[in-house]
């Protein structure tokens, strides 16, 4: 079980569309405690997805500091970031992005293939991860044999199977109905509460954001509001 804190200092990220310069992050600074569950909200173009990609090492900033645990991502090469992602971060996407030709168990096993690990140990970890998300009896099902909620659970199992420091969720309930969304969010809360995972979730949905202990509102690439959620106090063990 591991978790990492996150520190972002004066982050700048601009995109160019032809001759037009589009600022996505404009000097953003913030810290996220290890073991906390943070929701990021904001209108389209506010920079929340860009922020998630930078924390996940999928993209690099124009300037600024990105530290996740003991790693300075802003100093890493593309190859180092790839290796770092495989060991320290788990991704949950809105569209699940499961490999359709593989079973649930094989999808969950994918990140473990990047580790030197005996097949027996891999199978054990996959079984545990699927049990945590409540799909132990769906191991051999292909994605097209699962419901949307079950697919997202498989994606969550895939995100946690390597025991990452940070779980990054990009609109994890965006494609699900209200009831299934609640189940998924409760599962994320469980991962945070029981396993102490640092979770950063981007969402448009205030009901989803309400599961976070802290809600960050971004607007035009800067932090507009930083709210503590009184309904979800941070666990004392994980608070700074």
């Amino acid at each position, binding site marked *: 079980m591991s978790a990492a804190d996150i520190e972002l200092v004066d982050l700048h990220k601009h995109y160019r569309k032809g001759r037009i310069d589009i600022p996505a992050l404009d000097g953003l600074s913030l810290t996220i405690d290890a073991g906390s569950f943070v929701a990021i909200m904001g209108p389209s173009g506010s920079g929340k997805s860009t922020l998630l990609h930078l924390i*996940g090492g999928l993209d690099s900033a124009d300037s600024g500091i990105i530290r996740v645990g003991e790693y300075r991502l802003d100093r890493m090469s593309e190859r180092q970031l790839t290796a770092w*992602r495989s060991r320290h971060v788990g*991704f949950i996407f809105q569209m699940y*992005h499961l490999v359709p*030709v593989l079973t649930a168990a094989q999808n969950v096993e994918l990140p473990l*293939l990047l*580790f030197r690990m005996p097949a027996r140990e891999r199978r054990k970890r996959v079984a545990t991860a699927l049990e945590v998300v409540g799909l132990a009896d769906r191991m051999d099902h292909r994605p097209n044999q699962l419901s949307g909620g079950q697919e997202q659970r498989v994606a969550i199992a895939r995100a946690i199977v390597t025991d990452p420091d940070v779980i990054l969720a990009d609109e994890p309930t965006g494609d699900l109905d209200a009831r299934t969304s609640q189940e998924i969010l409760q599962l994320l809360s469980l991962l945070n509460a029981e396993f102490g995972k640092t979770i950063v979730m981007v969402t448009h949905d205030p009901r989803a954001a309400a599961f976070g202990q802290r809600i960050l509102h971004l607007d035009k690439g800067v932090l507009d509001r930083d709210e503590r959620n009184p309904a979800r106090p941070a666990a004392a063990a994980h608070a700074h």
Partner: protein
Amino acid sequence: MALPLTYNARNLVARKLSSTLTFLIVAFVVFVLSLLLSFVAGIRASLGATGSPRNIIVLKPGATAESTSLIPLDDLGPLIQTPGLALATPLTGTSAAAEAFATGRLRVGEPLLSQELAVQTMLPRRAGGAAANVAVRGVDDIAFALHADVRISAGRLFTPGALEVIVGAAAQARFAGLELGATVPLGRKGERAYKVVGVFTAGGGALESELWAPRTMIADSFHRRLASSVCLQVRDEAAVAPAVAYINGPSVGLEAKPELQYYRDLAEKTREIVVLTSVLVGIMGIGAAFAVATTMYAAVDSRRRELAMLRALGFARRSIVAALLVESLLLCLLASACGLAVSAASSGTRQDFLSDTTWTVLAYELRMTPGIVATALLVATAVSVAGTLAPALRAARLNIIVALRKA
């Protein structure tokens, strides 16, 4: 670590149509390639199995084959003086020569020098019935001592001075009307009826595609007073070079070649076929590589988000390239195995080859060799890599964020 093979295999199955089309194209290329190479290997094996290391073939200067060589009988006199010329020694066993010795038709001490007259006749093929040229060789009994691998497998030797013929086993298998007891029309207008009295083998070599009859009778039937070639045998292999030099020199003025080299040179004519095969397979291979590229571009395009997800999970660019290469190799190697299997089914079957040097049909066996299998697999691998590299590199360079967003 690489992605599991099941991932590659199931992705191929998932895209049934494009995978099947590519499979068929690659299988066809490999089939054609292996069949053409089997053909060349068969001809080379047939011609390579012909000849003795102590035999020398003498032709008219400038002639490349017996069919274009005519030697006046007067020119043959000096050949008896060839240094190292061997003399007949008694032979035992099952060869035609041993039979000729046993019946007194060959005598000990005779110089091993055989005038031979090579002509052609048209005979109907067993398959299809179309007529084709068959080599007819007029020989004296001494020829059996020089071509010691000739064995009578059925019937008997022809009788000198009689309208009798013995037929090679391969010729009998390929042409109609060559059964024992049948008559074969030979002569300039096919006016003489030769009776088939025997069938012979010759170690699987080119001679098995021929008909042999008494030289004097063939000369008379075809109105040919000249010899096409002279085959002579020297005492040992060391005597071959001096004998060739003597015959090529001013004392004789004819053109001599070791018999093995003569047949090797005939086999070399297949080099043109190899070149043509290479060009043809090269063109087909390029087409197949385009088919593979189309399939793999489609695969990359339809799996952009999946591939981007793998990159996000931490799979390196090289893992993505490797995954797509493995996928394509799996398809191409399976296809080549199928192409090879179909081609191998015809391996060992007897075929005809109309030589452009002798203008006669040579029977040969299609031969699938380990070298051909290796070449076919190499070509399939090259097609796979050539067709996959560009789409695989494109997949590896995908912008993860953009690809994950794209619907």
